[in-house]
């Protein structure tokens, strides 16, 4: 008996797999997760975070972000979330206060140092201070008092001296230590 000759059968892909069309919207990464915004591209990031994603840690801090409560990191740079329209965030990486801690809940050293120094007044502007401090410490491991003076945040409760201590605590590697 002659061996059965395998016949070359043309292979067609599963009919459910179709080439993807170019997708609408703005793709971006926020706190390690991928999102796609299909609404108004002029919507400021702040309202996208707060109203759409319900990530409310980033606070409203004035029409131009004057008091710094709405600071976030966009590609590792400090930005006022109300001043950036979604249109400018395609393929960008955003980190908000909710994204500072590790996935296992381990706090970022700056977060820990704010707790250690009780660098909190009412707490409303705290997320903005944290973002600004994280950014500063990333740029400068040992920031001077003059460097710290450049932080853009405002606080009527008067947490500034405690924030300064918290930043120095991180620089000294003492976050979380007594």
């Amino acid at each position: 008996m002659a061996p059965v000759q395998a016949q070359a059968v043309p292979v067609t892909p599963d009919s459910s797999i179709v080439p993807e069309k170019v997708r609408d919207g703005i793709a971006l990464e926020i706190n390690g997760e991928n999102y796609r915004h299909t609404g108004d591209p002029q919507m400021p990031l702040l309202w996208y975070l707060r109203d759409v994603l319900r990530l409310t840690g980033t606070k409203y801090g004035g029409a131009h972000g004057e008091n710094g409560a709405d600071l976030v990191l966009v590609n590792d740079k400090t930005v006022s979330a109300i001043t950036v329209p979604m249109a400018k965030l395609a393929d960008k990486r955003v980190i908000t206060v909710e994204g500072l801690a590790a996935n296992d809940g381990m706090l970022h050293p700056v977060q820990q140092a704010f707790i250690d120094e009780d660098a909190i007044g009412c707490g409303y502007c705290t997320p903005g201070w944290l973002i600004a401090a994280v950014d500063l410490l990333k740029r400068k491991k040992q920031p001077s008092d003059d460097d710290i003076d450049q932080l853009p945040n405002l606080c009527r409760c008067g947490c500034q001296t405690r924030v300064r201590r918290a930043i120095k605590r991180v620089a000294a590697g003492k976050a979380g230590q007594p």
Partner: protein
Amino acid sequence: MSDRTTNDGIRLSRRRFLQVLAGGAGVLMVGIRVAEAADAPVPLGLLGNTFYDLGAYVRIDSDGNVLIGARDPDTGTGVATSLPRIIADELDADWSRVRVVPLGLGVADNNGQPRWTYGRQIGGTGSSIPAAWADLRQVGALARWLLLQAAAQRLGVPANQLRCESGTVIAPDGRRLSYGSLAGDASKVALPNNAPPPKNPNSYQLIGKPAGDVDAREIVTGQTPFAIDQQYGDALVAVLTHCPWPDGTLEHLDITDTMAIKGVVKVVQLKPEPGQPWGSTVIAPAVAVLAEDTWSALQGQQKLKLSWKPGASGSENSSALEQQASALLAGTSDPSAHVRNDGDVDAASKKAARRLQATYFQPWLAHATAEPMNCLVRLEKDHASVVAPTQSPRDAWAVVQRLTGLSPAQIEISVPRIGGGYGRRLDHDYVAEAVMLAQAVDKPVRLLWTHGQNLSHDYYRSGSVHQLSAVLDRKRQLTGWNQRMASASALARRGVPDNRLWTSEVDADQLPAALVPNYRSDWYAQTSSIPRGPARGMPHLSNAFAVQSFIDEIAHSMKEDPLDTQLRLLGDPRQVALSAGSTLDTGRLINVLKLVADRIEWKNWLHSVNGLGIACWHLNGAYVAHAIEVAMQGQKLIIQRVVCAVDVGRVINPMGLEGQVAGATLDALSTALNLAITFNDGQIQQHNDKDYPLASMAQLPDAVEVIVVPNDDLPPTGASFLAMPTAAPALANAVFRASAVRVRRLPLMKELLRLL
């Protein structure tokens, strides 16, 4: 829930009762409730049967977790930490097992009238700690007593031989029972006839020990929900455009372009209700844009075409008001109030060896809260849910009740953590706005003010002019003091009788009252349509600046060290009777003065190249002094050192107190350096942080050195604004030493640059 839901209470005072509620199996709950009648305890059954119905409570679960309710709104004053720690210490709880639950308003229906089931609930007025000291200790003490009785039964050991430690009862033979395992039995123990006595202070474990904010971890991870963060899925976002004049009217409105914005649902007009006091209704006529989301609402607001017509306030001008104040003080008309009159100032003046006079000018101020006014309201036929950043939930309730006509218990007021209060949130215009809008659209409403509105539509602190005169005898003793002040009262248009309007503006007992034999204080009322209301540190903030600057000027005129002048004025340590029935302990004031002087090395005062300034004050039975060192580099003012000493009696949370003292110091410095609200043609001229510039990090000192006087013999006092009044005069006095320029007008930087 257990079938045992009633329990007679223990009488604490005429109107307060401790009560125990058996909740779910194995749970112990203890709270305080305020009785309506003074005769007998009200059965607990009337209170409802969930732990949320008990105020100032502690709940111990069978797993050992402890929930403690925080009754007073926390605007950053730390009361959500300090008040529960008072309970936890009396209970000997393990703080790491304690979870603090913020309590909303406790209100029950008492024949159509509200009954406040949690007693007092108010934040940011400096009274939370003293009130808590009076009653919250008893809550913890009773819970602990009940647990001890339950343990005694189970172990067969008399309760007085057991001790409690960190959530555990320990027998003499070393056997241990956790609170969790005892909670169920403890809830069935018969109540004692008298409230168990609070602990011996020597055994405090938490009171007097530092503790960070209970919400710290949630705050630094962005998880703490402020009112502004809360949402119902179907709520419309409302943003408002207010009329620049509180008494103005809408002249023209075209909403065509607004309605064309996707997401905009409706435009609604609001007006203040005639006859309602300030703070209870809409602050000014307004046009609200309601939309499905914030961005749509803000875009819709941008597209409004409208114009306003001024009312009578349209001619008001802040500089004209100041000139009018100066004219009042220079004239001979009778004052609106004789605040205090000791001895005979005129006779003393005739015999004087030396007379001095100076006039101090202070601007109008805004509250500038970080979290703008906002409110979330859901109205149903028989229920209202309101989430409001209010310092006074009862007053918020009253506004909702008036506008909805609902019965007392149908109104639910939730109060999350608040982004700054400073007195602004003792008023409830924003609650009225949100309720009116929810009624107009028949949907839940989430009201959001912009930052600019927060500044330009406020119940401001009035500007003031203070004319001070002093009389000295040949021995350089201060024998006469005459103080005349003019301002527009914060209590006007609030149902306060005219003869009490001065009480928000000046304190009859403020320094140097009761220390100078001939002392007179008069107040002249000004009228204004610009809204005014309670403000942090009022009336001490403005008066301390004038008085403590003037004492420095007296010292200078006598070529004397200002510390010596201050100490001679205070005299020997003694108790001096004040008009309010309280006393001024000059020894405590001398002590805080000397402490800051020593720390800042006051001995260098005369020869230092930098300027040193000092000031002291007392308020509400607490004492404070600041010493500040500044340097002038050309036109640049550098605040090099700030030392503050406080004596508040017993300290509940030293870490919280340090934060309050440092924070109030920085707030006061920021205010004194930079801030002023002005108005022209009745329109506020400040609309953003550039116009009303809170001090930047660079402008403020790098540190505030806080000295806390240990004083455990005296009950605790509130400290949320204690450190405000003395910062500005200490700064101005230091600036005088550094620059030879005497600043008698705030804000300081503007005046200093004008005079340099």
